[in-house]
């Protein structure tokens, strides 16, 4: 299904080109020029529009522009009258396309390394064709958009299909161009050509996933693959795929024919059959083995397992264990909150992420007083202010968290309470959360000991902070 979508999007380019190349060149001008800064949403909208117009001109520069736009969503361009008119229509489109904007925003922080080089290619490739249309640019942007009736549908489908792949586009576009250019020109192998069209996107999505995996494998166990190894593996896979799409490669390393066998031995194959079916088969198997390798890095403890069946076993076990953990944790969360009662008024203040310094100071002051009350083990129903302790802790680390005082009322807790507790943690990073837990455990220890002078407690808490 996705193959057809992509091919449809590719096939339907010529009519698009006829109607609106002028604005595409205008867009490219805006992308390359850097005059004044615009707000990120505006730039994202126009970047997306640039993205689609890029698609309409050439396939090869599409990916380079895509990566450039993704890597620098804050690209600046001069706002002309046409630009502003385009923006409203673009915003309507974007409203239908879902939250691609977040995905665009995500890799923005990864740097604008390739932006300079990518700017060069669109400008160099595209100016000649639409130059003759520059004079007859229509004054209203609506004409361009209305001429392209199926544009919104194609955009929606393309976004729906490729939005995941956009996330990984900060990788250098060089291997993508290698893949795309021979693939589009190759008409002899319809089956293979459709899948390699996916392959850059698939490669990028797997690149994105491998980036995510990088973080998680760092978290999980230090013994798993290092990031450099994964990067090598990913980049190694890209030239491997480019070799294959060119076909008739004599000494490509490939895997055994039998897909159920061990994948460790690689041996060079000579004179491999060059018909489309076996090539497609080989491509498919390579992709599957690639994915299995990625899964190996993702699923912990999978490095020693070889063979497809055992790998699948591990994956199944892992997915099952994760799902069971979710069940267990949701049960635990539903039961834990029965002990915490929050004031509904405090919750109904809809600001979930406020940051008010005055309140912080108050709570820091109240922290000491409440610590004394804790120590003296008085029974009180008012203003214990648990959460100020947490928020004062985070005040020192990050000044952004909600600050609400609560009083304990004994009634059955609702999901609102749970939401409240989650909303506090939404702005925390993982380190903050760990520190919260440490601080909480420290306070637990204080409770259990139930002794010591009052001045000892604040010092303990400060030590935790």
């Amino acid at each position, binding site marked *: 299904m996705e193959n057809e979508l992509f091919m449809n999007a590719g096939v339907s380019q010529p009519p698009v080109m006829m109607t609106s190349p002028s604005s595409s060149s205008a867009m490219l001008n805006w992308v390359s020029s850097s005059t004044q800064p615009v707000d990120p949403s505006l730039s994202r909208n126009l970047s997306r529009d640039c993205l689609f117009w890029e698609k309409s001109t050439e396939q090869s520069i599409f990916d380079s522009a895509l990566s450039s736009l993704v890597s620098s969503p804050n690209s600046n361009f001069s706002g002309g009258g046409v630009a502003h008119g385009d923006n409203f229509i673009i915003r309507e489109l974007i409203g239908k396309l879902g939250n691609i904007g977040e995905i665009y925003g995500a890799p923005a922080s990864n740097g604008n390394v390739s932006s300079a080089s990518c700017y060069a290619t669109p400008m160099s490739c595209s100016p000649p064709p639409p130059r003759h249309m520059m004079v007859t640019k229509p004054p209203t942007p609506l004409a361009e958009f209305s001429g392209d009736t199926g544009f919104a549908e194609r955009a929606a489908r393309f976004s729906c299909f490729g939005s995941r792949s956009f996330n990984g586009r900060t990788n250098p576009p060089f291997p993508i161009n290698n893949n795309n250019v021979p693939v589009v020109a190759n008409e002899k192998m319809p089956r293979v050509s459709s899948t390699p069209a996916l392959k850059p996107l698939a490669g990028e999505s797997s690149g994105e996933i491998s980036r995510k995996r990088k973080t998680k494998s760092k978290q999980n166990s230090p013994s798993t693959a290092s990031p450099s190894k994964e990067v090598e593996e990913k980049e190694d896979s890209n030239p491997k795929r480019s070799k294959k799409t060119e076909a008739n490669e004599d000494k490509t390393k490939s895997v055994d024919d039998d897909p159920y066998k061990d994948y460790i031995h690689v041996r060079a194959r000579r004179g491999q059959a060059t018909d489309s079916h076996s090539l497609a088969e080989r491509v498919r198997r390579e*992709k599957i083995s690639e994915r299995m390798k990625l899964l190996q890095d993702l699923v912990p403890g999978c490095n020693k397992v070889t063979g497809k069946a055992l790998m699948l076993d591990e994956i199944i076990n892992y997915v099952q264990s994760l799902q069971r953990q979710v069940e267990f944790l949701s049960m635990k969360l539903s039961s834990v909150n029965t002990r915490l009662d929050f004031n509904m008024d405090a919750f109904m203040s809809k600001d979930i992420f406020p940051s008010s310094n005055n309140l912080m100071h108050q709570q820091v002051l109240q922290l000491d007083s409440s610590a004394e009350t804790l120590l003296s083990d008085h*029974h009180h129903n008012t203003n214990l202010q648990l959460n100020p302790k947490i928020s004062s802790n985070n005040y020192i680390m990050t000044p952004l968290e909600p600050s609400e005082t609560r009083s304990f009322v004994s009634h059955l807790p609702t999901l609102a309470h749970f939401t409240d507790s989650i909303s506090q943690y939404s702005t925390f990073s993982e380190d903050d959360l760990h520190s919260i837990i440490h601080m909480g455990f420290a306070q637990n220890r204080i409770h259990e000991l139930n002794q010591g002078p009052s001045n000892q407690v604040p010092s303990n808490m400060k030590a935790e902070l």
Partner: protein
Amino acid sequence: MSSYNMVKQEFIKKWITTLHILDCSVEHPLNVTERKNAIKLSSDIAMAAARSSSTVWSRALISRSGNKTANKPMARRVLKKARNRMKNRCLTLRRNGNFTAKSGVRRRTELLKRLVPGGELIENKDYLIRETLDYIVYLRAQVDVMRTVAAVDSVTGNLTNDNN
């Protein structure tokens, strides 16, 4: 590390939203089982919504959750039209019947298809593995977030218990 944290942040935001919506639509009080189901449902939908409906498993998860409970408005709000499409496809597949396999990879593939939401709709084995990869990432994020929240909640719960 940062992209995984962004996944978790996204999941947290969506989870808060779905919990808000769920809280408005369900009466109180609830017993523990219902709370657990509500929490799980909201977190599943949040996980799928964080993936923003570009993967098969996210759409299937939302359609499955929408079918199970009466929270059709919430599911509809989170996901727009892919939900109904996925629901119809699920029904037709189940009607066609399941072919059980005995040997090795095929059996495990079918098992995996049953585990991953929407996996039964995927015929291409390669795409199934890709979906599984993505699903694992988000499932892992969900588990991590829930575990952290549970830990903090239990810690604060201990504090209040000691007070009372």
